[in-house]
């Protein structure tokens, strides 16, 4: 279809499983709707994010869905899209244009995700009753990519939420990492060592990889799964021990389906471009905290399949 409308999906780091799902779903949905699609990778580089918008426009895109490598580039890309008369929507990390007006948004706000994860961790912690048990000392490990504002949005909100259930600042320890499992694992080890007084741990972070690394480090330090509340963000690493029926520190994870976001984004763009529907300011894809008991029902088939890969 030569005259089929072209849509471009740009993600901040297209080599992470979540965005791989998102982009694949976006392409599939677009083609189902009779359009064509291209996938770009911003490699966590803000400047590249801007360049890719130009490339997308050059490629003749009618609509662009972007997960920005950094929210501050919003105005720059919003202007570029507007000047070229291309429909722009933000996925997962909301952005604003030069006037400060929000760009139509699909998915979940980073803050929103952090809130959900924090809440879940708080809930599990209260249920465990560790805070009231004088025999137990609770420590919270917040696994942070301190150089990425989109990650800080998440972890800041997670910390905010956990404090609502009675955790104090001096109980929260930051684990600085770079986004991959190994760096989180290496950083967490000594931090855990530095606090032998802690008997029970709560772990959350910027993504499942980060939480996984820290949980591995806790295991190495001899912490028992029962003394750990690990809440991930993504659920693609969390569900693996669940699927294998292995005891682990993973107690829950926020399942954010890249597939759903991809589908919805494609649909919204298509409606706007072909049917002239003004994109809704916010369209949320379903998101849910999953745990070993319910993940099979709440996650889609493909994601569940990956759990046993």
């Amino acid at each position: 279809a030569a005259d089929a409308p072209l849509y471009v999906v740009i993600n901040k780091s297209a080599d992470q499983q979540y965005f791989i799902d998102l982009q694949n779903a976006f392409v599939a949905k677009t083609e189902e709707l009779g359009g064509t699609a291209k996938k770009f990778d911003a490699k966590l580089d803000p400047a590249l994010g801007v360049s890719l918008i130009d490339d997308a426009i050059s490629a003749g895109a009618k609509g662009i869905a972007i997960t920005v490598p950094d929210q501050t580039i919003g105005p720059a890309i919003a202007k570029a899209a507007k000047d070229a008369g291309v429909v722009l929507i933000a996925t997962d990390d909301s952005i604003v244009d030069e006037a400060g007006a929000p760009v139509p948004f699909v998915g979940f706000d980073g803050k929103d995700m952090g809130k959900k994860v924090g809440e879940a961790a708080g809930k599990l912690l209260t249920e465990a009753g560790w805070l009231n048990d004088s025999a137990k000392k609770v420590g919270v490990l917040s696994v942070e990519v301190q150089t990425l504002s989109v990650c800080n949005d998440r972890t800041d909100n997670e910390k905010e939420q956990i404090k609502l259930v009675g955790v104090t600042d001096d109980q929260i320890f930051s684990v600085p990492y770079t986004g991959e499992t190994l760096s989180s694992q290496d950083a967490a080890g000594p931090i855990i060592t530095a606090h032998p007084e802690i008997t029970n741990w709560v772990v959350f972070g910027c993504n499942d990889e980060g939480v996984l690394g820290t949980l591995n480090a806790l295991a190495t330090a001899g912490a028992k799964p029962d003394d750990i509340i690990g809440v991930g963000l993504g659920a693609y690493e969390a569900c693996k021990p669940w699927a294998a029926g292995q005891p682990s520190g993973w107690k829950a994870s926020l399942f954010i389906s890249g597939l759903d976001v991809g589908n919805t984004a494609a649909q919204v763009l298509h409606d706007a471009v072909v049917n002239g529907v003004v994109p809704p300011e916010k369209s949320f894809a379903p998101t849910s905290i999953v745990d070993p008991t319910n993940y099979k029902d709440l996650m889609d088939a493909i994601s569940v399949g990956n759990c046993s890969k």
Partner: protein
Amino acid sequence: MITHVQTYDKNSLEKKGFLNRVINFIGTDNLTLFLAWIVLVFLISVVSTWFGLSGGSKFFTWQNLMNSLAQAVVIVGLLAVGETVVIVAGGLDISVGSVASCGSVVAASVLVGIGTVGSLHIFPTGNTLVAILAGMLAGMIAGLLNGLVVTKLHVNATIATLGALAAFAGIAFLLAPDGKPIGVVTQPGFTWLAQGRLLQNMSIPALNGSKWTGIPVLTVILVFVTIIMHIVMRYTDFGRAIYAIGGNATAARLAGINVSRVKIGMFMISGSIAGLAGVLLAARTTSGNPINGQNLELQAITAVYLGGASTSGGKGTIFGTFLAVIMVGTLNNGMNLLGFNTFAQKVALGLLLIAAVAISQFRQSQAEKARK
């Protein structure tokens, strides 16, 4: 043998035809690169369609050439030009990416002001020129530090700048108010650096139905800096000293060249240019973000080598680097147009670098064929 040498001589004198002039200007070393680039463009814009890939036809549109390609190459281009000076002198500056980060943050800070950092208060100046100079100054100071470490502490350049890479990256974040990006959208004068266009209303015909929208200010800056540095390297005693030091530092020292001073100067130049790149990053991303510029060093260094510089120093030209930057930019741009995925793009980029260098090696080895 004597005649033998004289003939060598004559040839080089006879070479005065127009074509030879052109080739001399491009430089025979750069010729391969230039041809390789032509081939690449042909592959993208024509051959791709034979394989039913859409998008290639969009390559030759003003929108693509001027808005995508011409802007995408600017940042790495600037870093690479500065890097060339250091590499020709037999050194290596791995810190350019982090220096750019610092420039980015500093420029944004003095522009919109960030209240108090430690003891010093930074109030908004709102002045683009001041911001640019501040960013370049930050880069120059970073370069000076590199230079002092290399010349006074006698730390090898590669190692010194490996250290600086980490150190300056950290400093960039420490400079920004608790590591957060500093937005500059409120400064049209500043963002004009990235969004402005020159010669907009020149009557240039549309290209494949995309009409002329002018030359990006960014691109003009890159070209300007490139030309300046080309002249510096080729016609000033500083430039010649760089080649001498890179070729044989002992010879340079014995000839009375103040090696230390030249090296410090060179790091300050590469630093200032990196600082400028950082400023433009801030303008382009509408934010003085400490991660601006991270991981750009390898791209810049790649371009310099692709441009024909020798890893052992003494060889390399600004113009070659410039060609290489355009080459890499074209590749990335083309693959996005054609919709290659990120993994395929990585493979292609790697193969391009190897292929291009292998070819020029082959050409040279033809000359020294006898040698084993």
